[in-house]
Every structure is written in structure tokens, then in C-alpha cells.
């Protein structure tokens, strides 16, 4: 507590306002009909965390059934059908219900207008509609689990998905609805960034989190509609046999993969760009140093967003696309390494000669640097054509994308939750338990997934219920890691939730941040700022004379 207040701004806080966005208009109904971006952000946070819990339970069950070749969980036999449903639900829930909305819809909704000095997002009612679409999609997805079962994998590859029984159609419609939730969030954020910046805030005065979310929103707007139409086509193929994806009536299954990855590759950047955006906030704030290469990082966000649209074919190197397409997509894929590298080097450049304090969010930021480095470097293996032929569709790919998605986005997301938690709830959590949680997550994660790189390059294919005995020790080691990871996440959740029992104790600016959200009270009042803030200095300016002026 004392430690956390060490950066507390020199100007004393104003008295905490009696009415804030949390208690201004109490009652469940006022929350459900709210158009306040902060409340919607909090509701999203509760929603995506519930999805994370369900998806995480499925993940632990999948790992548990892979512990031995006997396929039992607590003595209950797991059949191949059950296993297939479990990994499908783990994937679908984590991707569509959790990671895609996690940072933009939950944290972005809360923080983005505050950072811009705006009173709300551009279209508050659309924002609420987006949340309810998410709820509808979530209910449909859960219903499809309860009514029947989906065993297609989250990628819904045809013709398996057009021929298997189960509630695949309902699941695709759920994802369709979730897609529109994502589109509306994207539209909202692009319009907000364009039109609602505080007076004095030019494009290059925006915090880098805003740049990241803005780039994400561009992808959400331009890529998600194609997912929508793909899923409609898939559902029509299932119901009416229209003959586009099913080879039995003249369709082309590889075409489905083009359609699917045209969305789902950019979707990977919908997931990782906001993670990078959070890290770009955490590192200068906890290094107390100007962001090094601000423009380079901002441009790299936008260029990653654009590049993400022209590399989707690297998911299909051995899927039966033409060899020309394979070569073109491989060449383009390598371009992604450049902006990713630029970000990484600039983060390190920011830490150099900084004044680095290792609060929980910064611990997550450093974890991100290490894990994302592994995720990115193993991506080079997969982009290299001759090596990819061996590695694709194996556990190597599983490990790679978990390093990027979990080690990247989720770690950044948890770091971001810790970073803005005082602002959202008005309360500080225990630093000690936060740090222990982070350490457990870091250890457990590496034990779980570093192992899988070795499994994959040894030739263990993904989505396998059964495996050769030679892989058993590694599988067991990975499963033990998943328990540590689960324990770390559980501890982290308890630590955060426990803080809610305390009275409000967070100062307005616990970390010494320089962006606008730290200039309002913790938690903020309903309309964010007492007076319209006017931007007078660039973000991340830690020169003493500027900070003193704060």
C-alpha cells in the first residue's frame, strides 16, 4: 500500500467525490440499461472473465485427459467424442467469447474515452447494443453446448462441419452474432478516436493504447463481416446444401479455409494488438521514462493491422492451395516480423536508463516481453516453408499460438486489469499476492506450453485424443504445468476480488501515469471529468519540470 503510493502525484488529490459512476444510479436495472461506457466496460469485464473461467475449465479438463493414455478424469472414462467436444468448446469460447472482446470491449470501453478526455464513446447506445449482442451470442454458444454438442474444432473446417451431427448450426449463428458485437465495438472506437479527442490532442498526442485499439477497430470493421458471411454460408450449406463448400455437391473445402482465415488471421491481430497496446502503456509508466520511438510504435500498430489482411494463406501451406499462393503468402508473412520487432526493441529502449519499479502490472509486462519473444520467434519456424511442412498441424502450432495468445494477449490483459483496477474500482489490491500470482502464471504457462514445442517437433499432431506412448512423459509434464497455471490464475482472481471488500483507498494516480485517465478521480464520476480536459503535453513525458507541473 505504501509502496503503491510512491508515485502518487505531487499535487494532492482532491477529496474523493461522493458520487462516482459505480454508485451514481444504483440498482440492477440502471446497470442493465446504462449507456455509460465505464459501466458497459465493467459488465464486459465480468462477462469475458466468466467466459475465461469456462474456457479455462475446459482447458484443464483437456490437459487432464491427456495426462495418461488411459483418458480418465477423476476415474471417469473420457471418450474421443467427449474429448473432441471439450477442445472445440475450449477453442471457441476462448477465441470468440473471451480473447476477441477481452481487451477492446472490456478494458478499451472503460479506458479509451478516459484517455481521450471524452465523456463517452461516440455511440453509447450502439455500445450497449454491442454488449447485449455479446450476451446473446454467449447464451447461444452455451445453449449449443447444452442442447447438443459441437465437435468441429473452433475452425469449423468443411466438409467435417457440414456433415457432422450436433448443434453446429446454432454455434455458427452464435459466432455470427458475436461477430456483429465485435463490429459495433469497432465502429464505435474508430468514430470515437476520430471525433472525440480532447481539445489539443492531435493524432500523435494519443496514448499508444489508443493507437493499438484504433488499429484493432479497423480490423474489426473490415474483417469481421467476412466471418459473418462465411458462417452464414456454412449454415446454409448445412441446411440447404448450396454446394459451395461441400465437395459432394461440387463445392471446394479449401475455399472455406480462405473465407475463414481472411477473417481469422486478422482476428489474431484483433487479439494481440490490444495486448501490445497495454504493454506500450505499462512500460513507460513503470519505467518513468518517455516512450522511446513513440511514432514507430504507433505506425507499427497500424501497419500490423494492414499486414494482417494479406498473410492469411500461411494457415494453408499444406491444405491444398496452389503452390504459387503458398509462396506468395510465405513471403508476405515474414513482413509481420518487422513491426513486431520494432515494437519489441522500442519497449526495451524505453526501459533502458529508466527508473523501473516492479509493481504487479510491470511484472506482467516483463513476462509479456519474454513470452511474446518466444511466440514471435517460433512464428519464424512456421513461416519458413520447408520447416512448416513438418511442424504445421502439430503441437508446435498449438504451443506457438498459445505463446502469442495466452503468453501475449492474456498476460497483457491481466497486467492491464491490474493497472486500471484502482481506476475502475477505487481500490488497491495486495501487491505481494499479485506478484506471487504473476510468478505462478509465468512458471505454469512455460511448463505447460514450452513442453508442447518439443511434442510438436517430435511429430505429435494436434487435436489427438490418443497418442503414442513415447509422448506420455512430456504430456504429463505439460499437464502438471497447467495445474500451476490454473493455481496462479485462481490466486490472481482471488487477490483482485478480495480488494473489493475493502473501503476505497486508491489515489487518483497510483502509478504516476501521464495519460488523461489518471487526472480524474478513482473511480471516475459518471461523466468522467469535472471539466473538459485540455491536453497540454504529450503522453509519457517524465521530465521533472513537466511532472512537477502536473
Amino acid at each position: 500500500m505504501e509502496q503503491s503510493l510512491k508515485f502518487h502525484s505531487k499535487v494532492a488529490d482532491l477529496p474523493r467525490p461522493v458520487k462516482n459512476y459505480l454508485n451514481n444510479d444504483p440498482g440492477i436495472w440502471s446497470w442493465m440499461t446504462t449507456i455509460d461506457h465505464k459501466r458497459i466496460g465493467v459488465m464486459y469485464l465480468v462477462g469475458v472473465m466468466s467466459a475465461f473461467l469456462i474456457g479455462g475449465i475446459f482447458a484443464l479438463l483437456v490437459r487432464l485427459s491427456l495426462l495418461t493414455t488411459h483418458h480418465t478424469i477423476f476415474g471417469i472414462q473420457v471418450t474421443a467424442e467427449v474429448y473432441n467436444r471439450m477442445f472445440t468448446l475450449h477453442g471457441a469460447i476462448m477465441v470468440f467469447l473471451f480473447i476477441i472482446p477481452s481487451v477492446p470491449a472490456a478494458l478499451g470501453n472503460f479506458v479509451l474515452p478516459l484517455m481521450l478526455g471524452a465523456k463517452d464513446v461516440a455511440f453509447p447506445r450502439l455500445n450497449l447494443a454491442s454488449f447485449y449482442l455479446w450476451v446473446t451470442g454467449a447464451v447461444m454458444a452455451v445453449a449449443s453446448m447444452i442442447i447438443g454438442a459441437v465437435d468441429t474444432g473452433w475452425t469449423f473446417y468443411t466438409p467435417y462441419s457440414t456433415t457432422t451431427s450436433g448443434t453446429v448450426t446454432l454455434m455458427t449463428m452464435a459466432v455470427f452474432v458475436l461477430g456483429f458485437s465485435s463490429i459495433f465495438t469497432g465502429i464505435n472506437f474508430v468514430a470515437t478516436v476520430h471525433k472525440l479527442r480532447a481539445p489539443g490532442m492531435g493524432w500523435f498526442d494519443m496514448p499508444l493504447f489508443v493507437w493499438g485499439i484504433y488499429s484493432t477497430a479497423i480490423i474489426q470493421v473490415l474483417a469481421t463481416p467476412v466471418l459473418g458471411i462465411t458462417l452464414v454460408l456454412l449454415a446454409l450449406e448445412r441446411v440447404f446444401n448450396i454446394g459451395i463448400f461441400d465437395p459432394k455437391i461440387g463445392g471446394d473445402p479449401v475455399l472455406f479455409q480462405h473465407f475463414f482465415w481472411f477473417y481469422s488471421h486478422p482476428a489474431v491481430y484483433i487479439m494481440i494488438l490490444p495486448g501490445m497496446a497495454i504493454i506500450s502503456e505499462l512500460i513507460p509508466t513503470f519505467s518513468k521514462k518517455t516512450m522511446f520511438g513513440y511514432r514507430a510504435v504507433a505506425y507499427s500498430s497500424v501497419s500490423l493491422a494492414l499486414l494482417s489482411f494479406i498473410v492469411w494463406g500461411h494457415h494453408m501451406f499444406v491444405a491444398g492451395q496452389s503452390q504459387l499462393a503458398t509462396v506468395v503468402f510465405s513471403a508476405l508473412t515474414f513482413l509481420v516480423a518487422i513491426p513486431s520487432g520494432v515494437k519489441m526493441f522500442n519497449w526495451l529502449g524505453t526501459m533502458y536508463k529508466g527508473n523501473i519499479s516492479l509493481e504487479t502490472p510491470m511484472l506482467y509486462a516483463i513476462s509479456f516481453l519474454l513470452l511474446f519473444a518466444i511466440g514471435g520467434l517460433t512464428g519464424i519456424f512456421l513461416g519458413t516453408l520447408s520447416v512448416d511442412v513438418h511442424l504445421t498441424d502439430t503441437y508446435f502450432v498449438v504451443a506457438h499460438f498459445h505463446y502469442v495468445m495466452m503468453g501475449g494477449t492474456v498476460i497483457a490483459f491481466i497486467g492491464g486489469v491490474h493497472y486500471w483496477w484502482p481506476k475502475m474500482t477505487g481500490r488497491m489490491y495486495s501487491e505481494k499476492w499479485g506478484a506471487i500470482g504473476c510468478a505462478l502464471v509465468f512458471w505454469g504457462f512455460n511448463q505447460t506450453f514450452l513442453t508442447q514445442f518439443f511434442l510438436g517437433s517430435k511429430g505429435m499432431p494436434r487435436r489427438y485424443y490418443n497418442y503414442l506412448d513415447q509422448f506420455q512423459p512430456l504430456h504429463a509434464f505439460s499437464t502438471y504445468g497447467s495445474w500451476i497455471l490454473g493455481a496462479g490464475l485462481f490466486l490472481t482472481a482471488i487477490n483482485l476480488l478480495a480488494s473489493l471488500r475493502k473501503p476505497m483507498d486508491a489515489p487518483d494516480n497510483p502509478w504516476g501515469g501521464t495519460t488523461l485517465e489518471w487526472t480524474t478521480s478513482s473511480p471516475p464520476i459518471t461523466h468522467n471529468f469535472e471539466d473538459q480536459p485540455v491536453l497540454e503535453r504529450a503522453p509519457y513525458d517524465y521530465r521533472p519540470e513537466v511532472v512537477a507541473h502536473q
Partner: protein
Amino acid sequence: MSTQTHSDKHEHGGPAVYTKTLLALLFLTIVTVGASYVDFGSGNVVIALFIATIKASLVALFFMHLRWDKPVNAVIALAGFLFLGIFLMFDFIDFGARDNLRPVNFNGMPVIQGASGASGAPAPAAGTEKKE
């Protein structure tokens, strides 16, 4: 006060411009229907899509006010078409370079006449007669 100037600023075109636009659009419709009766080979597709693009541009520029509007709206509109173009282009890179676009003989799927002659046995039982 500001509202008055604001509405003035947004009033563009006017009935005369819109009428001319409509006439141009109708004329182009006649042209494109007419062109479809002439055989230009593969040029027909190009001509039809070219005329359609002119028509679409007229609608966007005049009816949708992009000619007078803030540039950002035009950028958004173009982005939509640009990314559609990317989608189309890379799919055709794949499809265009495939050896054989037609589905091979499959479980009673009709065999296509011409290239291969009439060999009616379904593929799984007749892997030997694969055509290269």
C-alpha cells in the same frame, strides 16, 4: 447561429446536379445492356464491371455526397472496396494457379464431358484412372 451556417455548409448538389446524375446513370444502364448483346469475348466481363464501377462512383460521389464530404468518409468507403479487392486478389492467386479447378469425379458426381471422355466409375474405386 452556428446551426444555420452548419446546415448551409452541408447543402450540396441540388436538384439540377441530381437530375443530371440520374440521367447519366440511366444512360449507362442502356449502354451496359446494349454491350451485353455484342460479343467481346472475355472483354464483356471487363466492360460490364467497368461501367458498373462508373455508375457506382456516380452514386457515391453525387448521391452519397462524397464529392463534397469530409475526406475521411471517402477513405472509409475506399477502404471497404480495397480490402474486398485484397480478398478477391489473393483468392484468385490461389484459384488461378491450381491445376484443375473442377472437382474430380466423386461419389456419383457428374463427370464433365470433353477433356477426359466418358469414364463413369467413381474415383475411390478407380484411382488408377486418374487424369494428370
